[in-house]
């Protein structure tokens, strides 16, 4: 008996918790509103299923509890009922799956005009690279990494010379422009995660992964690592600043190119050796 009441209370409590909970998804700051919509749809469909199943069960427990003299019915199966239930469930699953797959299709199709940038993960910090005037990123490899070239850019690749290197963990992006983020790790698995843009993707050493999004809201957002990467994992943070096109240009022109950084490093070395 009490279990029937408990089940009703569990359902009521769960719904109440959902309504009253102050813990909700962060305000979205990208074009992936569809993801939130799909999740909302999933919540409605599955929530209805949960409530229906548990309440029906609670009713059965109350109605068919043992009382002296009761004898259960004998009904091995009811194929028609089972077939119907199977069909209804299949339809519900298709309702969830179809929009999900459509949105996934968009997620993996990067717009042609997307601005390409690169995020580089290392235990335990973020750095970034933006293409220079040629609008292309130069090639890179782990074997080029040294004290003056922490991102491992190919020194010989002309495309890489004008790349803008941002070692400060602070990435600026213009609002309203699709961005394709290339992801590269030079040690272990990391994951580029900004809750407000919904999308995330692993950084895998040895390969370059990517995802894309369009920033839709000006503001500052925290970048976290969402793939466990050792004891410093929670400290691996960065900052993403979404700003107007003009502010972004101002910020971009202030960044150092690969060529400049090597020159300044080289001159510093020279000075150091001269002293």
């Amino acid at each position: 008996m009490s279990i029937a009441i408990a089940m009703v209370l569990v359902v009521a409590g769960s719904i109440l918790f959902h309504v009253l909970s102050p813990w909700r998804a962060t305000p979205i700051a990208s074009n992936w509103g569809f993801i939130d919509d799909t999740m909302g749809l999933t919540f409605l469909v599955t929530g209805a299923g949960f409530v229906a199943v548990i309440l029906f069960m609670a009713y059965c427990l109350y109605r068919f509890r043992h009382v002296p003299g009761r004898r259960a019915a004998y009904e091995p199966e009811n194929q028609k009922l089972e077939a119907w239930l199977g069909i209804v469930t299949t339809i519900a699953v298709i309702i969830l799956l179809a929009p999900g797959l459509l949105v996934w299709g968009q997620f993996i199709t990067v717009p042609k005009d997307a601005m390409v940038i690169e995020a580089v993960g290392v235990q335990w910090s973020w750095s970034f690279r933006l293409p220079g005037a040629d609008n292309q990123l130069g090639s890179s490899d782990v074997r080029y990494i040294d004290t003056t070239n922490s991102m491992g850019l190919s020194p010989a690749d002309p495309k890489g010379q004008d790349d803008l290197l941002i070692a400060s963990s602070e990435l600026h992006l213009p609002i309203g422009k699709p961005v394709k983020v290339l992801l590269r790790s030079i040690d272990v698995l990391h994951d580029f995660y900004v809750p407000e843009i919904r999308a995330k993707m692993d950084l895998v050493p040895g390969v370059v992964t990517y995802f894309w999004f369009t920033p839709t809201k000006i503001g500052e957002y925290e970048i976290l690592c969402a793939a466990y990467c050792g004891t410093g994992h929670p400290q691996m943070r960065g900052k993403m600043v979404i700003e107007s096109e003009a502010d972004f240009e101002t910020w971009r022109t202030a960044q150092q190119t690969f060529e400049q950084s090597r020159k300044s490093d080289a001159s510093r070395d020279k000075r150091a050796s001269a002293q």
Partner: protein
Amino acid sequence: MTDASVPQNVAPPPAEVPDVDLYHAHSWITKYVFSQDAKVIAIQYAGTAITVGILALVLSWVIRLQLAFPGAIPFIDANVYYQSVTMHGMIMVVYMLTAIFLGGFGNYLIPLMVGARDMVFPYVNMLSYWVYLIATLVLVSSYFFPGGPTGAGWTLYPPQSILTGTPGHEYGIILMLVSLILFIVGFTMGGLNYVVTVLQARTRGMTLMRMPLTVWGIFSAAVMALLAFPGLFVACVMLLLDRTLGTSFFMPSLVELGERKDYVGGSPILFQHLFWFFGHPEVYIVALPAFGIVSDLISVHARKNIFGYRMMVWAIIAIGVLSMVVWGHHMYISGMDPWFGFFFAVTTLAIAVPTALKVYNWVLTLWHADIHFTTPMLFALGFLVTFVNGGITGLYLGNVIVDVPLSATLFVVAHFHMVMGIAPVLVIFGAIYHWYPKITGRMMDERLGKIHFWITFLGAYAIFFPMHYLGVLGMPRRFYEMGETAFVPASAATLNIVITVIALAVGFAQSIFFYNLFKSLKYGAPAGGNPWRAASLEWQTPETPPGHGNWGKHLPVVYRWPYAYSVPGAPEDYLPQNAPPVRGERSP
């Protein structure tokens, strides 16, 4: 009254197994320690599994204390935290749940339920336990090596798992991999036994479709485990070689903390494929036996046949087959070819259909039933609530695009604890309360059992249901401390404290269970052979607890399915599987 549609010209299997086939214990040591009796091996398996399970439970308190009071507990630093997370996960999934369901319940119930005298290869069965025990000891011994156990997370993803930024990279990871390899070897021995016993040693009249669903669940889980564990085996061997010999199976060129490593060209994603090829079926290796056991508990205590037995069997088979081709849903954001997302999302959500049908059939079994609210029944019902809840959140994570924001957050942690942590553990408790009278001959205390149930069920739900919301908020998992983070409100910390307090309370409440377990050994009410008036074969043994060889001189002959409850016209509300049909009575 015999089944006319069936060819009668073939020889039935013999009703008796000659005594020489059985190994008889000659001394105390061979009877209770190096025993070849499946029932003793079952107790050994379950005892070991529960013991390491308690260790893992204590580790979960370490995790919870750190999350609720970051920095306030002196002995918990980042290393201890990640080591606790890793060991808690690995022990619970592999060394506790897998071992107790297959090694414990499988060993005890399969021979009794199919009417066999023992497992078909008793010696191999004994070896299986001892190898399992050694594997467990190797794992736990890593606490006594410099650097301690590995803190790589239970997924052990390279490159991070064998590099210096991870605690236990000195010996812990090696011991973990060796232990897993041993576990798999030991499990394969046991698994062969479970499968072949079901195939070969069923008694006369016990056709496949007359087996209790518990046997179906354990049998299918054993088959899947035999096919899935090689994935983990290969992954472990190759990772071990990467760690010890410096091969580059999984390790790409990398610069670790400023130092260039010699590895070149390896693929971390290959490890993930191999790991999850095992890892996903593993979920169902734990779930299928639970499905089977819960079906039997509900049927017995609701005095009604399980509804749609055939559908239940098909669903188990369908889930088993499908679960081998869904592993990629753990890797949606791993950087694998995104086109796989379509395939794995479809297969994953397809599993929801047979699983939902099982849930419907459990619930429909309650319709027009005669429900007795015994402790085992309460646990079975508690399983239904937590399983349905955890199952539907699986629909979020299986649907590839919805997984993207939720993956690697506390939503995932809440989901899998609900569906493959709490739900199977409730079944384990229910099953222990249910079969304890058969194993010991005494009943467990019902009052204590009910107290135990209410605290465990409501407490566990209160721990994990709110946790989903922290995940939706975006709080990542495997964070030693959240620190100052703009999007996390202060109230989240309060919720974490509440969850921790409940978790500690629920954890300590388990002592009620253990008190009951040991007290009832001596003071429990005598149970008789069949206290629940159940129809399946294990309750019809001539002795309780069943003696060596289970069945005395003659093996039972089976005349009907195991769910003949409340059959119209029958004098009692159950007909044992081996009760000969009475002529003139209405056949079910």
